[in-house]
């Protein structure tokens, strides 16, 4: 199922569009052109969904052109493709592209051209992250997203935008630069072990390299640190509320919808299969952080007066679930984590969109400035109620599917302490309902407290075009999650097999090692020469 260089086109079309936009004459033409480019990218990405070979979802598909990067003497290549983990995230990115343009339509009034150029560059970076199958290429795309985001927050953000933008960049940069050193170390180690001494960052070659246990621990820590900041996992989350609150609506949607997923995606894509033993031995620690994040994020959300900040902290809570699911090492929890990434992107994205629409009308984010606005904006309220229920995990809507799978999977995990952690995490579901419904009642229901809110206009056509597809997706994912879950199933199964196999090999070869949880009981594979799980490079 190869369609040439479709992925490369999808990744770079926005970048090309951003260059062409330099010649756009008026604000109006700039907006329409940005919409055209992002919508064309979305249409181009649809064949990925229809042409994707679900049975072989663990394999790399849509692999196109390849060439050397940096130097011929290093095995660093431009290598893009998608598998069951990345397909939905790529589609989410291209789907949110036009929506972000539309939500910025009237919000961005100054320096319009620069804004849309940055937005398009950002989309190239984000799409690239999910398609890169060379770690260094992944790193390049990963960092590329910081540059436009710095300006999106810093130029078009709120009052404390500069602090927020700088904090966002420096925080993320600290993590990712340490990861860079780890990538270099891993590249040389793998090169010496399996690639004739040639430095390699090719994902599939690295997968076949069993990193010695001692090395795994600190490489894992450096990788996980970078991704934990991005997710953000408690206690590395402090940049997130600042960035979210200060960013313009479009920036918040990108941040919540896609940028945060780069962290969780990185954990699934790199940390687990490359450092399986270290991942297993850190399960408890990361699980505790995740659960603290779930509960703490929920409690802090409840205490907010600023609606945007409330949603920002709810992201900390929701992504705690994703991380918990990833580190529970069961098929259900892993699939739940994957689908929860998509769900969170849609429902939290929609929450930010609706709050942005309110902000455009009243220029305030404080919940006290609203109250009872269901009377003046009934259609908007309908979408808000739907989104809040989806976000809170009401069965029948998308949020439920992911959280349920994660909790079920994590509870059945044999990792130490995971059951206790799951029980505590479950309270997060209840707390989510508390703070979200509380926000809903304070802002939308009850008596209309402010006279200014009486004359507020309801959704216009543009806003309906934004919210209807989001709402449809929430319902679709809630009622029929199977087609989406099927995509990630073979990839997740394969990942768990790889983890098990590699752990067995690495931990058997290290006699000093005190084996970690279930490997105490299980019989080990007979020899190192035993074939690894079949599915690697196509």
């Amino acid at each position, binding site marked *: 199922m190869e369609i040439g260089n479709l992925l490369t086109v999808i990744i770079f079309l926005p970048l090309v569009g951003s260059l062409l936009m330099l010649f756009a004459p008026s604000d109006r033409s700039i907006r329409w052109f940005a919409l055209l480019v992002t919508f064309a990218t979305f249409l181009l990405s649809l064949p990925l969904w229809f042409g994707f070979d679900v049975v072989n979802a663990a394999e790399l598909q849509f692999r196109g052109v390849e060439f050397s990067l*940096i130097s011929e003497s290093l095995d660093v290549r431009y290598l893009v493709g998608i598998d069951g983990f990345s397909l939905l995230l790529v589609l989410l990115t291209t789907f949110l592209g036009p929506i972000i343009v539309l939500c910025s339509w009237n919000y961005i009034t100054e*320096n319009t051209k620069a804004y849309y150029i940055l937005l398009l560059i950002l989309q190239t970076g984000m799409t690239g992250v999910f398609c890169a199958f060379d770690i260094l290429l992944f790193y390049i795309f990963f960092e*590329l997203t910081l540059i436009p985001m*710095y300006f999106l927050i810093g130029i078009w953000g709120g009052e404390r935008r500069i602090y927020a933008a700088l904090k966002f960049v420096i925080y993320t940069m600290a993590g990712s630069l340490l990861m860079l050193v780890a990538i270099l170390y891993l590249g040389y180690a793998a090169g010496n072990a399996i690639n004739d001494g040639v430095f390699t960052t090719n994902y599939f070659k690295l997968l076949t390299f069993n990193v010695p246990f001692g090395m795994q621990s600190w490489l894992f820590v450096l990788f996980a640190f970078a991704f934990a900041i991005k997710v953000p996992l408690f206690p590395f989350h402090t940049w997130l509320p600042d960035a979210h609150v200060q960013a313009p609506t479009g920036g918040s949607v990108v941040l919540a919808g896609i940028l945060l997923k780069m962290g969780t995606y990185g954990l699934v894509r790199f940390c687990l299969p490359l450092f399986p033993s270290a991942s297993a031995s850190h399960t408890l620690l990361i699980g505790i952080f995740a659960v603290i994040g779930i509960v703490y994020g929920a409690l802090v959300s409840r205490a907010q007066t600023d609606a945007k900040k409330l949603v920002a902290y709810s992201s900390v809570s929701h992504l705690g679930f994703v991380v918990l699911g990833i580190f529970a090492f069961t098929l259900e929890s892993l699939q739940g984590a994957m689908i929860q990434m998509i769900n969170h992107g849609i429902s939290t994205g929609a929450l930010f969109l609706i709050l942005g629409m309110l902000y455009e009308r009243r220029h305030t984010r404080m919940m006290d400035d609203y109250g009872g606005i269901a009377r003046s904006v009934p259609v908007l309220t309908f979408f808000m109620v739907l989104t809040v229920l989806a976000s809170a995990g009401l069965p029948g809507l998308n949020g439920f599917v992911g959280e349920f799978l994660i909790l079920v999977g994590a509870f059945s995990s044999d990792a130490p302490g995971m059951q206790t952690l799951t029980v505590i995490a479950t309270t997060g579901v209840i707390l989510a309902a508390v703070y979200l419904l509380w926000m809903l009642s304070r802002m939308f229901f009850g008596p209309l407290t402010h006279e200014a809110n009486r004359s507020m206009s309801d959704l216009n056509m543009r806003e309906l075009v934004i919210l209807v597809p989001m709402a449809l997706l929430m319902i679709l994912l809630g009622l029929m999650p199977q087609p989406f879950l099927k995509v990630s199933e073979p990839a997740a199964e394969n990942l768990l097999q790889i983890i098990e196999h590699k752990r067995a090999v690495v931990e058997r070869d290290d006699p000093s090692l005190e084996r970690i949880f279930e490997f105490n009981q299980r019989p080990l594979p007979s020899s190192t020469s035993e074939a690894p799980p079949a599915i690697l490079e196509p």
Partner: protein
Amino acid sequence: MELSSAFDTILVDLAGGASILWLSLIGIIVLVWDIFDNDAPSIPWVSAAAVVIALGYESFAVMEPSSTAFFSLIQTGGVASFISVIILLSTLASIVLCAPYLKGIRRSYGEIYALMLFATSGMILLATANNMVTIFVGLETMSIALYILTGVVRSDEGALESALKYFLLGAFATGFFLYGIALMYGATGTMYFSEFAIGYSGSDLRTLFWVGVALFLVGFMFKVGAVPFHMWTPDVYQGAPTPLTGFMATASKAAAFAALILVLYHGIGTLELGGANWQLALALLAVATVVVGNILALTQDNVKRMLAYSSIAHAGYVLIALAAGTSEAYAGAVYYLLIYALMNIGAFGAMSLLEWDGKEGRLQTLNSLSGIGFKRPLIGVTMIIFMFSLTGFPPLGGFFGKLAVFAPAVNAGLTWLAIVGVLASVFSGYYYLRVLYVFWMKSPSDADPAVQSSTFPIPISSASVLVVCAGLLLAIGLIPEVRDITLTFFAQGSLLGLP
């Protein structure tokens, strides 16, 4: 060596030293021309044309294998030409930027161009030297011209102070350097650093040799502005006319580092060490340099001074590669010098354009430039590229440069050094992005009224320098050939031909 055949050898080898001779010749012509037709407006363009010719010549020579000329006193082709290209590129950019800059501050000095040409020929001599005496001659030719250039705007007291400071400290460092050479010669009996190994193995004065190396390194660390010999850098960089600051920060640093790399690669690196660990010494210098450079840059409010401290930090990144001391690391260091030159020519060039007026622009405090990005999009946008590249963000050149110096360090077992390096560059993110914040995110109403009302023109020549530097930084990651060329320089054996 037969003295009777010496003259023939010199004639044959003229091609090897062609750029040095050519630039000196044009320099002398320009100097004489300036006497008779004071500050003729065509002087800069003639000088620039001369540099372009040398640049073309050296670009072709890059592909030739490394060799030596003039009784092995200098190296030709290969890495020598590559470094010459870096030096000539930055000279060319500086000359192009200098002409409108001087016009802007209502000064005109024809001799600047002669001095720049002399300095450049000294730098090339230094960077291509294959003998300690050649290094010294090159170093002094370069330095003396630079001392004068620093103080060339005679009416500016700050510049004069800088020049005197530079001269006194520079002369001091030269003393160390000479003592170092003398001791190394005393211990090994040779001035050719590729013969050190032979002299050293038969020498019973090994301690003396290492004392010599230490003194020699002190001299060099001064020239490249490494901590703790960096004190002169901020004052001199701030005091000198901005395009010349860019010239000093890039070309002279590249030349000094190139000479150091060649001495380490052909000379000191080939010795049987025994207990001596020069690599650890370089690693410690690197740590001090990246940490102190970055931390001091954090607190600067003056952009030129900030760039000066940041250039200290960048010297530290190169030292990280030198501490690794492998072929791959030396290649990475050379590659880094190219990228470093592009970034800093661009950054200093952009700042020089903002000094359209002898008074207000000269202050160059960050806040006086509030909101300049939207007002001057060319400077603003290219500055985005330079600052993010200096911070080391992909996909810009600075990232690939850092990769080229950190990766060999990791490969050589100096992972801790790479970690110190990247953590220090997290600090650099703060001060580089602060420039962009002032340029793009601060409201223009906070700016100096003078900045507000000004409508200074940007000459096409200066604009093209900025655009070319920015374009190269954007594209260089996609051109693996550049990195591969640097790797070939150090791929074959280290010993060159000897007389």
